[in-house]
């Protein structure tokens, strides 16, 4: 009964006219950036943060969340139609989705993706409602040692997800952790790594870092590649599935939802891992005469459901533990902090309307996506080939204005330019920025929990392994790393990322 009461509180919040409107704006904007070349959800949410300063916190979060899952939806559209996955989570969709489009079944692939996402989104919404409260309750019992180990686990999983070498992912995490503690130490008041500059006393702003890396750095990367987009289908028709086809995809959708929901909850998990895992499952189980990779419909249905379920359940660790499982969630944490909400187990008890409103809005947003986007597909198709040389200067404008509006400081603009160069350099060195961003966000938290845990144990480091829950978390983290190092699996991992 509790769940029903909570959900009805959520829906009554989310159904207010303003929240409905901004949820709608969020998903449309999200789809737009998912479809447009060279702009990801992290940079977009960062750019729009200043716009949401004056909103109610719940409205701001609803809109930003809408951008997140809307972008994923748009990303699968480009994956199917142009074989260019707009977001990392739709890399897998491009394999069979684009093969279907080449066969003239683009409409069917798009409809499968939309229906799968919607079913997954609906189920995931209920799963969040079911599992978030007990998890938050458990988290309230966490001591500093458990929190520290949980953060270690989160970082370990982000390494598993990173492309390329384990060593570089580790290096980027430590770079991020160090960058995160630049500024004034909350405990001693000492300013660290500021080079005596006042503008660094508050540390590096997350938005500045994210916009530099994902906004400007990406622009330079895209300009260097000079690629053009080739559209598979100028007009898309046949956006319907027959009853028989629907029954055919139902099982992959449900399996994908299960896989995605589970992996999304893991810190560091989320949409990308979910879609890879679901693809592997479907490939094993498929009875389709069409082989995977050549346009098997299950290869679209499973992963698309999984990435949507995973992206929604990845809100669970963010909302209940305050731990971001991917850069987008990290930015959502930044957004909550701007509205002076400290993400963590207390959100659920202190801000029930915000918590449940956000969750209910996800279901509404998924509904918007399916009823609006299939009819609007013609518009999205036109936007896929938007001329990049006219788009990127506008992105630069939004980055610059967005950054300047945080503190009204030109130093933030210079810092963003610096991180733009760093972002470009990292991509040249094949070092992924995502683990660094996670480290950046988690750095101050880690230091604080480490300090508290050691204070309570009188400086004894064994506290992390003698407390059972903390030990379990560390063992899981070690297992995650060991898995990457195993030769047979690391080979498979490389193959998956190559595809």
């Amino acid at each position: 009964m509790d769940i029903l009461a909570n959900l009805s509180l959520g829906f009554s919040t989310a159904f207010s006219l303003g929240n409905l409107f901004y949820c709608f704006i969020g998903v449309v904007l999200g789809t737009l950036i998912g479809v447009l070349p060279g702009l990801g959800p992290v940079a977009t949410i960062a750019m729009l943060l200043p716009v949401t300063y004056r909103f109610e916190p719940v409205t701001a979060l609803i809109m930003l969340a809408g951008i997140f899952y809307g972008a994923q939806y748009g990303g699968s559209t480009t994956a199917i139609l142009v074989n260019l996955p707009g977001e990392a989570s739709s890399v897998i969709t491009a394999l069979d989705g684009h093969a279907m489009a080449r066969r003239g079944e683009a409409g069917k692939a798009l409809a499968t993706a939309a229906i799968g996402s919607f079913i997954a989104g609906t189920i995931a919404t209920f799963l969040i409602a079911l599992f978030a409260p007990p998890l938050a309750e458990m988290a309230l019992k966490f001591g500093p040692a458990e929190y520290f180990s949980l953060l270690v686990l989160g970082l370990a999983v982000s390494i598993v997800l990173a492309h390329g070498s384990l060593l570089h992912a580790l290096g980027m995490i430590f770079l991020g952790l160090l960058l995160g503690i630049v500024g004034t130490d909350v405990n001693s008041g000492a300013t660290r790594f500021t080079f005596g500059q006042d503008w660094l006393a508050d540390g590096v702003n997350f938005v500045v870092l994210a916009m530099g890396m994902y906004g400007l750095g990406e622009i330079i990367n895209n300009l260097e590649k000079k690629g053009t987009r080739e559209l598979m289908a100028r007009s898309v028709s046949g956006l319907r599935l027959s009853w028989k086809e629907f029954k055919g995809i139902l099982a992959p959708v449900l399996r994908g939802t299960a896989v995605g929901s589970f992996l999304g909850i893991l810190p560091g998990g989320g949409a990308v891992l979910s879609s890879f895992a679901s693809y592997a499952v479907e490939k094993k189980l498929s009875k389709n005469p069409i082989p995977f990779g050549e346009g098997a419909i299950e290869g679209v249905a499973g992963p698309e459901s999984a990435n949507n379920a995973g992206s929604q359940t990845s809100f669970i660790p963010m909302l209940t533990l305050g731990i971001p499982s991917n850069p987008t969630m990290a930015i959502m944490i930044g957004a909550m902090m701007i509205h002076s909400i400290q993400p963590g187990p207390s959100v659920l008890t202190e801000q029930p309307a915000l918590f449940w409103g956000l969750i209910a809005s996800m279901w509404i947003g998924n509904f918007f996506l399916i009823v609006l986007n299939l009819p609007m597909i013609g518009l999205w198709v036109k936007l896929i080939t938007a001329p990049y040389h006219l788009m990127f200067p506008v992105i630069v404008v939004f980055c610059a204005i967005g950054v300047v509006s945080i503190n009204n400081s030109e130093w933030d603009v210079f810092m963003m330019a610096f991180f733009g160069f760093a972002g470009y350099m990292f991509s040249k060195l094949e070092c992924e920025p995502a683990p660094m961003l996670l480290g950046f966000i988690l750095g101050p938290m880690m230091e604080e929990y480490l300090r508290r845990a050691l204070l309570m144990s009188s400086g004894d480091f064994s506290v992390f392994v003698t407390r059972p829950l903390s030990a379990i978390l560390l063992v899981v983290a070690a297992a995650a790393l060991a898995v990457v190092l195993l030769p047979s699996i690391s080979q498979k991992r490389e193959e998956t990322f190559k595809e």
Partner: protein
Amino acid sequence: MSVFIKHPRDFFAGLMYASVGIGAIVMAQEYNMGTSVRMGPGYFPTLLGGFLTLIGVISMIRSFLHAGETIGAFCWKEIALVLGSVVLFGVLARGAGLAPSLMLMVLVSAWASDRFKLGTALALAVVSSVFSALVFVKGLGLPFAIVGPWFGM
């Protein structure tokens, strides 16, 4: 040198980690270390710097042992134009005001594309800067002048 470095990416990434790590350790010595019971502000950074240096050294050693592709040239023109336009904006925004500095930023950054045409870039610059100056200054109350004091306004 390049005879020994078989994997330039690993080498330079390692060099970056190690130098940042060592820099962090050196700078952290100015802060109070404290003890593990009462961690001072220097404790955690030293720890992190140590790990980062270690990772950097391992990466550099690996670069002598296994082969990898070369890094490839940096596209300096695009970097200079895109990032330069942003820095220019930062320098000019307060004095010249948002609209002129945004216009200049759009023009300079658009130049980074192969398909740059002065006419379209000018139009884009005017439209986007006027639009965003109005939205952010008039609409959202950003405390910057649309046209700054340098123009006597």
